[in-house]
């Protein structure tokens, strides 16, 4: 009798321990269910219907919304610009940030100040910076850059009023805002490279150029993985900067996929079309990120 009570108590204690422990997972399970699983399922479901968000009546339309996502001119334009933006910012920021990091690693007068200035644009809200730049790049003669250009009898240049120029301006402002942040990331990795590697290379007669390409760059491959995944996913998900700088215009020249989703879904109440676009968008992001990580792993192995 005493034996069974003891085992029952032991079992009770074991179970209550497990329950107490699993209770710690309850809040994140709620977040997971309410903010991810259920809305994701709804997005999939809506993407196959003509649901408009208000009427209870909805019809199953099959893959029609998905065809629209690839044929509707506004949607293809947003796909095109989002890819252009993501790839261009990733490439340009990487090409500028690595040399910048090498320079910031050297000893020179005012180094801390220079580092802080380059890093600073990453601190304020990019939306606020986008608004400020919209004043600086204003196509009007009174825009800051156009006023300066007028002093040397140039312009006014329609920075944000011309499609190609607006796309270029958006990408360049983004490069301005992000390069310093990524340079500091690379700098941290450069600082962890042992100095004797360079000393040995110098003794062996390697030029600074050779040292950069044979020592620094290969050892920066892990940093490049981190930096480029952030740049590419951030670029695909971008909304704040193009929207505050140009509102997506002129026309659809700088409309991002996110903006298209919001406009279709919440602006025009075309839930079906917006959801199809959202699902396509998610698949793009997943495929690109997985592809990028696989390539990066392979590169890392090659250099080790």
């Amino acid at each position, binding site marked *: 009798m005493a034996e069974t009570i003891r085992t029952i108590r032991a079992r009770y204690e074991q179970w209550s321990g497990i329950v107490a422990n699993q209770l710690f997972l309850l809040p994140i399970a709620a977040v997971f269910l309410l903010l*991810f699983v259920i809305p994701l399922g709804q997005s999939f479901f809506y993407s196959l219907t003509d649901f408009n968000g208000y009427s209870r009546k909805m019809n199953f339309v099959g893959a029609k919304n998905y065809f629209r996502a690839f044929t509707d001119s506004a949607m293809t334009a947003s796909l095109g610009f989002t890819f252009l933006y993501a790839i261009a910012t990733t490439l340009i920021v990487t090409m500028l940030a690595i040399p910048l990091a090498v320079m910031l690693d050297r000893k*020179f007068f*005012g180094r801390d100040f220079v580092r802080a200035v380059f890093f600073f644009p990453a601190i304020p809200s990019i939306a606020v910076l986008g608004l400020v730049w919209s004043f600086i790049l204003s196509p009007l003669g009174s825009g800051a850059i156009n006023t300066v250009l007028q002093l040397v009898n140039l312009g006014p240049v329609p920075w944000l009023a011309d499609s190609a120029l607006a796309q270029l301006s958006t990408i360049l402002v983004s490069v301005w805002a992000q390069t310093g942040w990524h340079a500091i990331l690379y700098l941290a990795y450069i600082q962890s490279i042992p100095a004797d590697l360079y000393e040995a290379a110098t003794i062996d007669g390697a030029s600074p150029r050779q040292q950069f390409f044979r020592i620094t760059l290969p050892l920066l491959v892990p940093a490049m993985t*981190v930096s480029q995944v952030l740049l590419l996913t951030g670029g695909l998900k971008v909304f704040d900067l193009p929207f505050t700088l140009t509102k997506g215009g002129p026309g659809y020249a700088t409309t991002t996929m996110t903006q298209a989703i919001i406009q279709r879904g919440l602006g025009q109440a075309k839930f079906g079309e917006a959801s199809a676009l959202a699902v396509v968008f998610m698949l793009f992001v997943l495929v690109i990120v997985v592809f990028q990580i696989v390539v990066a792993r392979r590169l890392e192995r090659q250099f080790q």
Partner: protein
Amino acid sequence: MNAVKRRGAILTSIVMLALAVVVGLPFYYIVVNTLKTQRETAIAPLGLPSSLYLDNYLTVFQTVPILQSFLNTLYVTAISVVLMLLIGSMAAYGMIMRKSHFNRWFGIALLLAFMVPFQTTLIPLYQALAGIHMVDTLNGLIAMYSAGSIFCYFLIQGYMRTVPYEIIEAARIDGCSTFGIYWRIVLPLIRPILITVGVFQTMWVWNDFITPNVFISSSGKQTLVLQVYTAVSQFSVNWPAFMTLTVIVLVPVVIFFIAMQKYIVKGLVSGGVKA
């Protein structure tokens, strides 16, 4: 050799300082124009002000409810970040203390959820919030930001592995409850990662534009970033006033940056944060 090196350093210094000036020019532009009249700004956008002119600051404080927006932002940021850290650290603790099959699969599911972009769930979430009358409320924003707790979970869990298990075991033998161990032993031990993650999530929530832009419509519930956005049309011709508002909004961010610089760089290095 030494002279060559020195010349190199001077050259580097000149080039880098010049580049820094170019990169910093937009900030100079913002600040300097807050001290000018509209006429001065139009004629010489980059010139220094002719006299100390502070009317722009008066105009902005009189016409824009900055204090209200500041308090809104502070409320949303503080509650969201505390909530995210709490949910994330609780989950990390639960996962580390009990390594069952279920928990392992749940961890993988969380990783998949982490890859889902916000844009994909946005429309159903908007609908759900509308259904419970939480669109256009600050608490609705907090509910949206709590999605960030999955990101917190991953970073905290990575750090929590470094906590020596013997301490937890010793506490358990001494009769400390599951919650007691979490609250009194684990949380103090993982303080460094809580600060790092907290700093990053603070910057995300404070600076976020897309969520308030979608969910907030009444002016009394705006965050600071949204306030600046709506002020563009209000000050569409009064550029100095707009720049002044920007400067006022940037002040808390700059103070935060200076105070937290150490943690920002540390977090950036410890595995490339920022989703």
